[in-house]
């Protein structure tokens, strides 16, 4: 083949085809914190943010409506009721107290109240006020924000 043919039929089409290749810019790595459904400041380190998923965020909502008055030191209305109570209820972020308790125990305490579980009668039963899903959500929230952090046990999570 003559050189002219080589240029015409091979090189020019190759240039045309190769020039249409586009370089795809690398996608930014997904930041799990930025894309979490909701975030919560860690109680021990305000700079650290804990991502919350949907269920935990619903638990946060229920918690702030019903539980925050006794299980936290500051509430949306200002002062908390916690210092009025004897025995003092544990803070919701108190990992040392709650991490060793099973999910079932926690759920039953919330549902049936303190006196049914051998604890103080100050803890009311919420089983008729909150739905089982809401109670599960509150538990998920408490587990998520516990300090020291809560580690789920090896066996599959009981629902």
């Amino acid at each position: 083949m003559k050189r002219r043919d080589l240029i015409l039929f091979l090189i020019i089409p190759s240039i045309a085809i190769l020039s249409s290749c586009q370089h795809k810019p690398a996608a930014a790595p997904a930041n799990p914190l930025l894309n979490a459904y909701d975030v919560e400041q860690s109680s021990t380190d305000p700079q650290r943010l804990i991502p919350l998923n949907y269920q935990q965020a619903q638990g946060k909502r229920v918690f702030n409506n019903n539980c925050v008055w006794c299980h936290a030191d500051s509430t949306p209305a200002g002062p908390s009721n916690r210092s009025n109570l004897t025995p003092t209820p544990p803070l919701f972020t108190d990992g040392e107290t709650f991490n060793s308790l099973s999910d079932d125990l926690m759920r039953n305490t919330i549902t049936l109240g303190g006196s049914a579980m051998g604890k103080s009668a100050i803890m009311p039963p919420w089983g008729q006020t909150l739905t089982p899903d809401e109670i599960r959500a509150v538990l998920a929230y408490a587990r998520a924000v516990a300090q020291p952090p809560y580690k789920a046990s090896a066996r599959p999570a009981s629902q």
Partner: protein
Amino acid sequence: MTAKKMGEISTRLRAIFALVSVAFVAVLAVSPVRDFFQSWKRYEKNYVSYAQTRPDTKRLLADFHPGIDQIWLPEMRVLDRCTTCHQGISQTSLSDASVPQPFRAHPAIPHDVKKWGCVVCHRGQGPATEISEAHETTLAWEQPLLPIRFIQASCGVCHRADLPQTPKLNRGRELLSQLNCSGCHHLQDIERPAMLGPDLSNVGNKLTRQWIYKWLKEPHTVVDSSGNTVVDGYETVEEPRMPQFRLTDPEIKALSAYLTTLKGQPIEPAKFDQGVVASLQKSPDLADQGEVRFRQMFCTTCHSLAVTQGDETKLIGGNIGPELTKVGSKINPDWLVAWLRDPQSYLPHALMPRYRWSDQDLYKVTQYINTRLTDPELLSNVPPLEEPAQEEIRLGQRLFLEKGCASCHVIQGVSPQKDFGPDLAILGSKNVSQLEFGNSSIPRNIISYIQAKITDPLSVNPAARMPQYRLTPTDLDAITTALLGMTGSPANSSLARLIVPRAQGAFHPAGAFGELSDRYKCAACHRFNGDGGNLAPELSFEGSRAQRQWIMDFLKNPQTLRPTLIFRMPQFNLTDQDASVIADYLGMVTQSAAVKLSAVDQKQFTPQMAEMGKQLYEVKYQCNACHTIGSAGGYVGPNLSNAGNWLNAAWIEEWLKNPQALVPGTIEPRRSLTEQEVQALTAYVLTLKQKAPGSAGTTAGGAQ
């Protein structure tokens, strides 16, 4: 080349033919090979092997169907193939966070995935079966997945009314209303508040030109460069209302010149009864007395004041009215008296109630404001301002329109520019190609666009007229969520009927009660049947709840029912006539069908029952954990020291049986009380009476 004979083909030709044939087959093979190795097939294989590690393998595999899986709802125009890779989406046993994506189940939400599809909430490309095509912006599809951070925007597409499950969306809508975004932009379902910015028709009577200058330069109480509200150098965190306009010095001079010429009706000098003035003028603690009255009347329920506690300064109080820390240095004293006597004469739609003032009280309070709530340094940075020239005033008049002031502040006779800012009612449905990025270096997606526009309008369009807002990251996300939810009406009518509209407020009482309700602005704080303000309890069933005499006493002298609240009902100085009209209305109209007042006879409650009730209250159910009697108890529920005079017996009974039926969302837990226990507790509560309720004066019964 010539063939010698038929069938004799040169080797060279054969070689070329062989080569080309092989190349041809190789090229043809590319497509079937790629088809064989599609990523969704790989995910399905992985799902099957993952399912075999789970305890409920049998069921998972029974529900598994190889091949492309789609949710197809033609009447809703849904065609979503996401479940091809996201095989576990409906399997509740795969909900745990340890299950790897894409096999994890969808969290339990109020909508069924199979009935709605995925794209309706998560956006993205439903028909796609490849990851980048489904999730990201590509050549053929512009709408990427909505980050989970903003997923509540999709709730807002149909739910135009606020839901408790969407706090971010609700907050965003609240901010859009409060910050007056609807003053310049048309927004979907965000009503223009009655008070956008203050009406400026007579502002020349109220403010000095120096103060206006200072305000235009820095329109907050003061906000420092990091966006915190600062009072006199101390820091606190609150939302600023008026944004910062990028005004040059001559522009500020012109605007302030123009505004001071707006005098309308002149304010008369304040007139007090001469005897009162004479007796009070000489008191050394006049300002202190004024402060006492100021506090007793709970002005801070609506207005905030900067309070220094320890080493930090906070704005304590409500944000219905402006903060008042330095208001004495701001306003004309005659104006203040006229305002307090009749706010609506200056500003017809003002939310401030028209109190009944005695000359004594008014004098004391105004003296307090004028001498204590001041800051002599406030205007120290303002340059000397001479008498305004005509050109300056005309320039100011023009700037008032051009800069967008007219979109928030009303001046009689001045009509604002229509559509000062672009229409945002369908912002959430816009594709990337419909957004004007200009020459900026913002990432090309709608979220970055919205956030850049809000945090720095000039970054997107150097000629932007939008002023500078300062928002916390949480609030910025909330506003972005609300804006992303504004997608306009859906394309087809079968979706249109799914929209849940915003309820329109409809409580406008008439008659004597209507006049009083209008004068004292009850609806600014209280709700009737869901319509009104959020600051105070809902009064829809107040007639069933409270006894008439108690209501009368409370209105004359609002006490503390909840010890820890900052916001209290102000003392309006109601006459007996006023209180009686209100109490009658509440007693007659605001009744609950569940509470049969006449069915309960007070005489059936015996002292034995009350004794048993006391035991239940204190020992078995520990009600004192949340309620206060006397000085002991908890702060969560209302104070019960005077409950016998306050609550109706029938209400107490119904409340104890099922609180949420009477006040949905109340935090009183519902217990399984027997009928006997209910009666006993009611009997006990009814015995909790204080001595004559009014005699306690301004200190409320119970804990302070």
